[in-house]
């Protein structure tokens, strides 16, 4: 039995597999990078690197045919191959010490990257000068939020992720027997004046006397955000409570009453609330004299955490983020003629792993190549 396993196991640990995986990785990276020009980095990441296979849609049908391996597959096989190779072949002698350490660092890095791709959450915090916020917003995901505002000192937010927002969907909410039904849903929309509609029956959602939302193609550009629009009806115990047209570009919520409670409903970028506030005191955009070339960007912010009794100032600038409560705040952008700062907020519990693995790899390389070099020099001296 063990012998049969061994036969099966040998190819998994083989060097040939390593080389094949590395070559496949190279092909994957090339194809993925080329496609980024068309679909943007976020989409390319999802399709090429955070997937098991690469698909190619069969024209005329809904079928997707896998034609190559995706990042998870190649990375996974490489990881297994690396671990297997060590277990099966390497004897832990001093001579191999460098390579063992190097490969362990690599194994740790691959695992760390897997954890990151599964658990990392990136969002943005836009702050006008003087504004304080306790939430950050996703650049790619939206939510339909229903907020119970009856309580005097707190609000209860029910957040429906955009993956559930599809035309015709009905979503049961876990509270108050509420149910939400989706009518039309446009993943990306544009707001225009009703007089600008190409024809009266062109698909659109009326948002007000001066504005309608029309569906537009999803954008993949790096600095453009998709603005969804939806027609939403809310029911309680089967009875209709209200129906509205909502659009991501109208961040003001609409109020309604149901079952004696007051609620708000709004379609907006997905929010990640935090137990503390960040206030922008000053944003600086230093330029080189006589030019518009940026020399430095910095945001002086105040961190206000009542639970932990923190109320302190911090300066966030290029290559110098703020780390607090497992989150990291980076200076990412600005707007409104330097009056608004945009901070990138990253939650990544496994952020330390790459540092550890890099240290291991560096150590392994120095040891291994150092040994090569000394033996090479020694041989020449003998010669």
């Amino acid at each position, binding site marked *: 039995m063990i012998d049969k396993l061994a036969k099966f196991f040998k190819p998994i640990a083989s*060097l040939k597999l390593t080389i094949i995986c590395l070559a496949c990785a*190279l092909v994957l990276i090339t194809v993925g*990078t080329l496609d980024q020009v068309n679909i943007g980095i976020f989409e390319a*990441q999802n399709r090429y690197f955070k997937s098991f296979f690469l698909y190619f849609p069969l024209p005329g049908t809904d079928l997707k045919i896998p034609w190559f391996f995706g990042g998870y597959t190649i990375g996974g096989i490489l990881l297994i191959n690396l671990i297997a190779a060590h277990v099966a072949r390497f004897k832990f002698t001093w001579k191999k010490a460098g390579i063992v350490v190097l490969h362990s660092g690599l194994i740790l890095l691959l695992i760390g990257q897997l954890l990151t791709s599964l658990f990392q959450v990136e969002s943005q915090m836009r702050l006008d000068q003087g504004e304080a916020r306790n939430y950050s917003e996703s650049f790619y995901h939206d939510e339909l939020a229903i907020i119970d505002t009856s309580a005097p000192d707190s609000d209860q937010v029910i957040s429906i992720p955009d993956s559930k927002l599809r035309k015709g969907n009905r979503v049961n909410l876990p509270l108050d027997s509420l149910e939400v039904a989706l009518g039309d849903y446009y993943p990306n929309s544009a707001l225009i004046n009703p007089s600008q509609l190409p024809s009266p029956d062109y698909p659109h959602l009326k948002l007000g006397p001066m504005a309608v939302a029309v569906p537009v193609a999803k954008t993949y550009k790096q600095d453009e955000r998709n603005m969804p629009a939806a027609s939403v009806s809310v029911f309680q115990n089967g009875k209709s409570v209200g129906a509205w047209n909502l659009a991501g570009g109208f961040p003001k919520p609409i109020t309604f009453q149901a079952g004696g409670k007051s609620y708000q409903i709004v379609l907006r970028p997905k929010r990640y609330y935090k137990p503390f506030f960040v206030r922008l005191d000053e944003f600086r955009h230093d330029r080189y004299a006589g*030019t518009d070339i940026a020399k430095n960007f910095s945001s002086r912010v105040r961190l206000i955490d009542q639970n932990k009794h923190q109320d302190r100032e911090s300066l966030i600038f290029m290559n110098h983020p703020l780390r607090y409560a497992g989150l990291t705040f980076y200076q990412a952008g600005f707007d409104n003629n330097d009056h608004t700062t945009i901070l*990138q907020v990253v939650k*990544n519990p496994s952020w330390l792993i*790459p540092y550890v693995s890099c240290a291991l790899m560096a150590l392994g390389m120095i040891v291994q190549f150092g040994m090569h070099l000394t033996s090479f020099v020694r041989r*020449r001296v003998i010669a």
Partner: protein
Amino acid sequence: MKKYLPWIIGLVFVLWIAGRMIPPRPGPGFDFARFSQLPVLVDGRVMPMDSLARVSLSIIRGRQTYETADGKPAPAIRWLAETLMVPEHADGLRVFHVENPEVLDLFGWSDRKEKDKFFSFTELAPFRGEIQKQSELAEQTEAEVRNTFQREIIKLKNAMLLYLRLKNSIQVEGSPDFGREVEVFEQLIQPGMQAIQDRDAGREFNAPDFENLLLFTKRYQNVVQAKYAYAFPNSASGKPDEQWQPLGEALLGAISTGQISYPVRAYSQMASAYRKGDETAFNRVVGQYSQYLKQTIPRELTRPRVEVLFNQSAPFLQAMVLYVLGFLFAALSWLVWPKTLGKTGLILIAVAFALHTLGLATRMYLQGRPPVTNLYSSAIFIGWAAVLVCLVLERIYRNGIGSVCASTIGFVTLLIAYNLQLDGDTLEMLRAVLDTNVWLATHVVCITLGMSGTFLAGLLGIVYVLRGLFTTAFSEEVGKSLGRMIYGVVCFATLFSLVGTILGGIWADQSWGRFWGWDPKENAALGIVLWNAIILHARWGGYARERGVALLAVFGNVVASLSWFGVNMLGVGLHSYGFMDQAFGVLMGFIASQLAIIGLGLVPTRYWRGIKAREKPGAAASLPIPPTSPPATAVPRA
């Protein structure tokens, strides 16, 4: 005697090169030497007039020299002087480079059989509106997806815009005697201000005084929009951002102070003198102004002076010449007189390397930064590191291979750099995210070294294939030593590219919150690491031996060139710092050539001339090759 021959030949060439590097003695006429050194603030950095001239002419004409009205070649500083001070002459000079047929179609010039596609501003002026309109249209398309016409028309518009700005940098364009005009203006200020105050207070005011000042103010306000070169030091201001002023602001600033600042006056007098052809007056004012600068801003003068010297001596160009000479000697040494010619070649290459180093060090001094800050400097550094490694290899193996590779890579990278120079100022200021010397010195240098190694390994692979296939100078030792060189260089490349990529990830984590984002440039670096790792693993697994490793190394050239230039052509992501255009064709040609060489290398070895020569009885290779590697020692098995 024979022992000294290489040194003597070397000395002759070195002296010749040194002669080319010494700046010409200032002759009679306008003191361009001093004028070149005058400092101006452009794009955030203080540069000498000479650099402003070269950079501007590169952008407009694609060269650092131009042809005067009588067809004689002249240096950029002369063109700048004409543009700054006698713009109506400069308008007639054929300096605008337009070659794209669709752009020429716009003007109806496509059937002009001009050999040089250079046009003057006067010829282009009637089409200004059309050029503006077309480039506005073109700019609405995203930079990455523009076609050639769109890119060329935008380039032309920018060139014309730059030219217009230059014309209004030290005088108002069209002023027949700006020196006089500035004096008149100064005299008008006080009475004009009085008239304004009177009018505001509702009193009787002197209408002509009021009108005159208004006229001048409007005139100078128009110039404000043309600001580009800030020529006027403003030591009166305490703010660090306002140490230099452009023309419009300097003139309007005089209204509040009541008098014209000395720099404005000096430049206006220079302009008037130059227009009149009065060399004595011009030189005198330039001299006085230089004195003024020495007294007021002495610290801003050293770097421009060094930079002018650097520009004129052109160490990289001289190094290119010496690399070519070194290559000839070293390659010749494979045929005849190996020791003498080989040593001469090595000496020449070493001197070229010294110049290469000097140029690199001067750039670091002028910029105050680690060696690699943009695409241009990466080309210089890749060449420098590769040449250094080759010199070491030559010292170890002493078979001319190191010299040939050193000179080839040195020449090619400097040639690439020369072409990259035409986009603009290569000593440009770094934008905010790059403003960190630590990461520039570590991550960027390591990645560049990794690339350098990959290219060098590829070149060695090419030498392996060409020598083996086409020459008889391919004994077993040569093959083995080449094999070892390639392996050693690949190890070097793997080490540095892996370390560089890791450092890049850490920098990205500090800067943007994620260690790895699958950004095109990150992917490109990873590609180099992966390919080098494949070579090493293939060798260790016995899947590739001497020839296989050489061929894999040649493919490394493809991977590295795509990584270095290809990503810049994509323009997407956080790393888009440079943009190539015609280089695309060159890149594709290069890749095709490498694939062709790999194809050649796959020919079975029994057909290789060099291999066949080995089998001949008594086969010493017919080309004298000194013993190279140490005798293989038996290493005890693990």
